[in-house]
């Protein structure tokens, strides 16, 4: 299998060219063309009706919410939304495709153009993957192959679920870029609140189109399509496998055959999906049951307004405005709500760096799974801000602050009072501190003499002794100041 030879790895000679088709389920309550619910996990065929079963005489009627979400998706990706687009029938037979055609969009999609900036380890700075088009379509049902002997079971609950298909230009050059593109896109879709973007429930599905060409070549090589990818890591792995497979063929002087392949996660292989390629001819034509889709300027404006600040802009602003590191910014960007929480906390406590450290540290460690907000957290945003202020002022040591945080998770009291009650506040009273300093100097006359004579390196030792004397309650900064002052 390995194409490595004396001339070095194949990747020195061949460039990977990948385009992705991402199918994303829009989070409407009902299906795209009927009133059946879109919820996941119901008993088979219970969310069906004459329309989504394709019974004779039934007709589709478009769900307005699906249009709004599709437009918002397109805007989030920086696409141009077209005033008029057209639904088309994609004709093919499959038992879980009830009407014998999928209602999709073909030559006039709802939006075109757009881009997703990618980044991260192994990716050249400033790389952008262009989005070719975004179109609306309905999902098919599910075929269950392993439940009945000699028979395939068909469940049409999913049939008619609204999807947007996001097609990239063939701009992706590595598995890492593909992974970043998908993660950044998932993030965008979540920020735009258009999809649950959950790969486990199948609300995000990806097809990979891949070809190789010699470095420097312009013309594209023959591509293959890998379907059935149900996780981002599967996409990355499939790209590696398929690129290696194609390279082996090309290096041996062979030609890649245009085909559709399936990724097998268990065996870690890609294999042909069907014997005969080119046998499908989708016979697209405009869907006569649906007039053209007209998206008014007002709807575009409304959806633009509904978009929050999106990750690309927010990434830059967080770094500049708060002076955060790249890693911290990425961790905050994971969710829009999380990011909002950070900004509200930073404003409330007046110390962005501490706010960030607290969110990514103790709060992350203690928050419930999936909870990207402090609303449900027992400490709450306002009390956490108060705690951070105490720490920032020096009233609490970091250790004491963490202790207090633990107490606050169980006790709804005011942080300042809790700290007092638990004796966590640092002593900053100069007289009290002077008494401890006097005692330590008296108990350690030798060190005291040397220190007062100018041996500055003893400062640390003496501060430690004063801290121990105070049982940890003294404010180390003030102890430091007092000792330094005595040394002159």
């Amino acid at each position, binding site marked *: 299998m390995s194409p490595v030879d004396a001339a070095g790895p194949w990747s020195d000679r061949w460039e990977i060219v990948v385009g992705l088709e991402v199918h994303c389920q829009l989070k409407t309550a009902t299906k795209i063309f009927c009133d059946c619910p879109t919820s996941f996990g119901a008993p088979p*065929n219970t969310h069906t009706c004459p329309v989504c079963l394709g019974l004779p005489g039934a007709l589709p009627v478009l*769900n307005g919410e699906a249009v709004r979400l599709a437009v918002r998706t397109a805007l989030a990706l920086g696409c141009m939304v077209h005033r008029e687009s057209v639904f088309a029938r994609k004709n093919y037979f499959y038992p879980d495709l009830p009407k014998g055609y999928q209602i999709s969009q073909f030559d006039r999609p709802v939006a075109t153009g757009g881009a997703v900036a990618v980044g991260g380890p192994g990716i050249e700075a400033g790389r952008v993957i262009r989005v070719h088009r975004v179109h609306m379509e309905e999902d098919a049902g599910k075929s269950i192959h392993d439940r009945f002997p000699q028979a395939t079971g*068909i469940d049409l609950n999913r049939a008619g679920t609204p999807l947007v298909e996001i097609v990239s230009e063939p701009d992706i050059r590595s598995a890492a870029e593909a992974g970043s593109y998908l993660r950044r896109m998932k993030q965008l879709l979540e920020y735009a609140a258009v999809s649950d973007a959950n790969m486990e429930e199948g609300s995000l599905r990806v097809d990979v189109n891949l070809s190789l060409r010699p470095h420097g070549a312009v013309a594209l090589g023959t591509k293959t399509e890998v379907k059935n990818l149900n996780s981002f890591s599967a996409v990355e792995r499939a790209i590696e496998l398929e690129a290696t497979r194609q390279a082996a063929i090309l290096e041996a002087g062979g030609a890649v055959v245009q085909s559709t392949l399936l990724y097998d996660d268990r065996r870690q292989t890609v294999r042909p999906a069907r014997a005969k390629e080119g046998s499908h001819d989708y016979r697209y034509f405009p869907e006569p049951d649906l*007039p053209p889709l007209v998206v008014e300027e007002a709807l575009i404006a409304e959806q633009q307004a509904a978009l929050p600040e999106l990750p690309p802009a927010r990434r830059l602003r967080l770094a500049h405005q708060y002076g955060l590191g790249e890693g911290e910014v990425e961790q905050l960007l994971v969710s829009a709500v999380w990011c909002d929480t950070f900004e509200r906390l930073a404003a409330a406590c007046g110390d962005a760096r501490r706010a960030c450290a607290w969110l990514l540290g103790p709060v992350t460690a203690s928050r419930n799974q999936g909870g990207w907000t402090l609303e449900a957290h027992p400490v709450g945003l306002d009390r956490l801000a108060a705690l951070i202020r105490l720490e920032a002022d020096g009233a609490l040591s970091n250790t004491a602050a963490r202790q207090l945080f633990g107490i606050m998770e169980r006790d709804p009291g005011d942080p300042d009072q809790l700290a007092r009650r638990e004796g966590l506040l640092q002593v900053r009273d100069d007289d009290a501190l002077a008494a401890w300093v006097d005692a330590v100097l008296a108990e350690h006359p030798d060190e005291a003499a040397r220190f007062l004579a100018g041996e500055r390196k003893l400062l640390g030792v003496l501060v430690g002794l004063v801290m121990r004397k105070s049982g940890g309650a003294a404010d180390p900064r003030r102890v430091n100041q007092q000792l330094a002052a005595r040394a002159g």
Partner: protein
Amino acid sequence: MTGDPVASVVVSEEEVRRVAALARVAIDEEALPALAADLGGILAHMAQLRAFAEDDAPSASVPSGMPWRADLPRDAGAAPASASVTLLAIAPSQQDGFFLVPQVVAHAAGHEPVAEGA
């Protein structure tokens, strides 16, 4: 109608076979010649459409767009359980809530084990 110079549109039996396969209609071999002749004959008449020059075509009037459904709350959209039972009952073959079809063999030639549109 006869003597039309473009009446030479010929549909071969092979083309009928190809189209019948696309349309998933079993055709008897004996019926192919007659069908090919029928389709060829009909299409020959259709050839007069080509005489229609493109610049004669008026721009289609811009339609006003289509009505949209409201996205009902999840509860409101749910069909009563009895409805799905009725819908399943009209199926030629069903079991445990599933419609049944002959086993889809994942890799047999000619079959398409992947739902393509998705």
